[in-house]
């Protein structure tokens, strides 16, 4: 089915892809007014330049499509790194009433709990440069990356898999792959309590059994960098991000296990949509009423897959520390601190004030990062006065950012912010652009070493394939839904 545009549709400002009308609210916000069968309006965060990109694909239509879903509360929200996704746009946030609302696997995405983890290494960039090649080669050797990456040293049997699915990063720490201090700095302590391993299929288990501790492919990576600039030195110090400090970014998720969970439950929800008479503008938005058997099954499986992802990033952290110990020493490795770990593909049940009263709602964040404000009880005590760290990786050639959540963001976006640069070029086009070039040599000339399983991966991920993450971050900070703490610059990358 395709969305039915209302009769009085006006063209978007550029008169392009979407049949839905868009209105400017201010310099950083755009409204998609209720049109046709939309149950609420859309709210897009973007400046003029980013809006041009947004209007170039189906993203606005997807924002409007999400607004058709039953029980949506508040607007259908899109962050400035929004781009075309499956059903929900990537960069989308939508909250649903527990009574009358729905849960949709398409609102979480295939890579359940795809997320980012940042480590702070007690070394200055000048200490690392002389041994950087050795460090990145060690990381490349110890963290399987690329298509079909798997570990030969860890294969989960059914019992261990159930433990991982139930306990997430806690499973890893209990086996010596990290510390209690790590857990304190992971969203939800690295373990979501509603996980139901029985809701994870044999197929999903088979796909994930040897993938714990692997990078994966596509835009996933492990990146060594340093703090290039601190915008709030006090906050940066608390986070362990004083200027010059070396950092390690980890971007990965639940690998094949999460993809299979999504597939399995999309199948079930195709039927649920018919059973519950839910009218959808796009099949990929299939969903089930919260509290229904289909929703409960997905909820249990999604939380289990999210725990798998937390365990994956915890295992990767262990291997990063091992690499640091090998290249530097055990003291440096032991003092390598987890700054924060946060999901950007997930659904959570959270209390938020809607229409003047506090309600528990199911917040879907797909390519959007939770960004809780100062004082929120879910934050680690050390960070509570600051707000939640929001980790925003950019492309491999430029820079990344660390932000903090704000009270305004909590009120306006259900405590959410952007998640990255956002792709602006197809993989195919990027490959064509990169074909006559030697991209690793270009990056090396700019001080960034790259290791990857294949040339294709590097070519597809050239910096030009992404929006400038600074533009994305500027929008969320000007709009007041997050604030900047530090800018990080890459010096070596293992690409997935």
């Amino acid at each position: 089915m395709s969305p039915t545009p209302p009769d009085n549709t006006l063209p978007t400002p550029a008169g392009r892809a979407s049949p839905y009308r868009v209105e400017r609210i201010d310099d950083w916000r755009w409204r998609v007014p209720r049109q046709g069968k939309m149950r609420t309006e859309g709210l897009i965060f973007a400046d003029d330049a980013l809006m041009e990109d947004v209007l170039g694909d189906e993203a606005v239509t997807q924002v409007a499509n999400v607004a058709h879903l039953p029980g949506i509360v508040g607007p259908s929200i899109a962050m400035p790194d929004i781009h075309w996704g499956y059903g929900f746009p990537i960069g989308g946030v939508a909250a649903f009433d527990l009574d009358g609302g729905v849960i949709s696997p398409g609102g979480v995405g295939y890579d359940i709990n795809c997320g980012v983890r940042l480590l702070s290494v007690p070394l200055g960039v000048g200490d690392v440069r002389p041994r950087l090649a050795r460090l990145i080669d060690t990381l490349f050797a110890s963290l399987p990356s690329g298509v079909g990456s798997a570990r030969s040293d860890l294969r989960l049997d059914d019992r261990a898999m159930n433990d991982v699915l139930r306990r997430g990063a806690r499973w890893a720490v209990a086996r010596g792959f990290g510390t209690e201090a790590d857990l304190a700095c992971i969203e939800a302590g690295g373990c979501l309590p509603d996980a139901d391993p029985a809701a994870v299929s044999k197929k999903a288990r088979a796909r994930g059994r040897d993938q714990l501790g692997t990078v994966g492919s596509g835009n996933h990576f492990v990146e060594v960098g340093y703090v290039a600039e601190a915008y709030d030195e006090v906050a940066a110090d608390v986070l362990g991000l004083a200027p010059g400090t070396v950092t390690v970014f980890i971007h990965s998720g639940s690998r094949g296990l999460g993809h299979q969970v999504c597939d399995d439950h999309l199948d079930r929800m195709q039927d649920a949509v018919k059973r519950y008479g839910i009218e959808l503008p796009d099949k990929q938005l299939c969903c089930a009423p919260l509290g229904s058997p289909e929703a409960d099954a997905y909820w249990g499986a999604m939380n289990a897959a999210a725990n798998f992802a937390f365990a994956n990033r915890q295992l990767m952290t262990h291997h990063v520390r091992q690499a640091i110990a090998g290249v530097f020493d055990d003291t440096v490795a032991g003092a390598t601190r987890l700054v924060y770990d946060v999901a950007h593909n997930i659904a959570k049940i959270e209390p938020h004030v809607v229409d003047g009263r506090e309600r528990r709602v199911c917040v879907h964040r797909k390519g959007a990062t939770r960004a809780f404000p100062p004082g929120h009880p879910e934050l680690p005590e050390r960070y509570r006065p600051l707000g939640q760290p929001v980790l925003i990786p950019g492309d491999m050639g430029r820079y990344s950012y660390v932000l903090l959540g704000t009270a305004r963001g909590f009120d306006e976006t259900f405590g959410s912010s952007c998640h990255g640069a956002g792709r602006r070029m197809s993989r195919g086009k990027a490959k064509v652009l990169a074909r006559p070039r030697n991209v690793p040599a270009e990056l090396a000339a700019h001080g960034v070493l790259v290791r990857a399983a294949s040339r294709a991966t590097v070519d597809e991920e050239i910096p030009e394939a992404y929006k400038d993450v600074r533009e994305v971050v500027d929008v969320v900070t000007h709009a007041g839904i997050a604030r900047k703490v530090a800018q990080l610059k890459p010096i070596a990358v293992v690409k997935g």
Partner: protein
Amino acid sequence: MITSTSADSPDGTTPDRPTGGTFTLLAHTADLRAVLTAPDRPALYRTAVDFVRAVIVGDQAVRPVETRAVEPEGDAPDERFFRFVRELFYLFDLDGFLPAAVEGDGPWTVRGERLDAARHAWEHHVKAVTRHAYLFDARPDGYHVELVLDL
């Protein structure tokens, strides 16, 4: 854009018997869109095998030395086809199985081999076959299918 006339050969290495189907791969923002056509259902399934193989390893030869059984799932023809394609990518994800040819009309026997790093270089890793904009059009003169793959 890659447009190919699908082919299916007894040994899976030298195309010599056209299926009559075609597939076209088109770039999508971060992913891949595919259009498949075929004059009849058996040709559509043969074309699907060639399409999946092409996405994963391009035009590199794949030998039909192992088999995998694929059971039909789903009530309607569009759903059965969708799940068949998805299963082919799953088989690759599970143990590197590359499809070369298919026999049967549900259940199917898929012939192929496991990826051999010495002979095969991966072109794309498909994380999922999406239902977004999935089109399965059965016309009197044949089939027209559109799929979007999540890479």
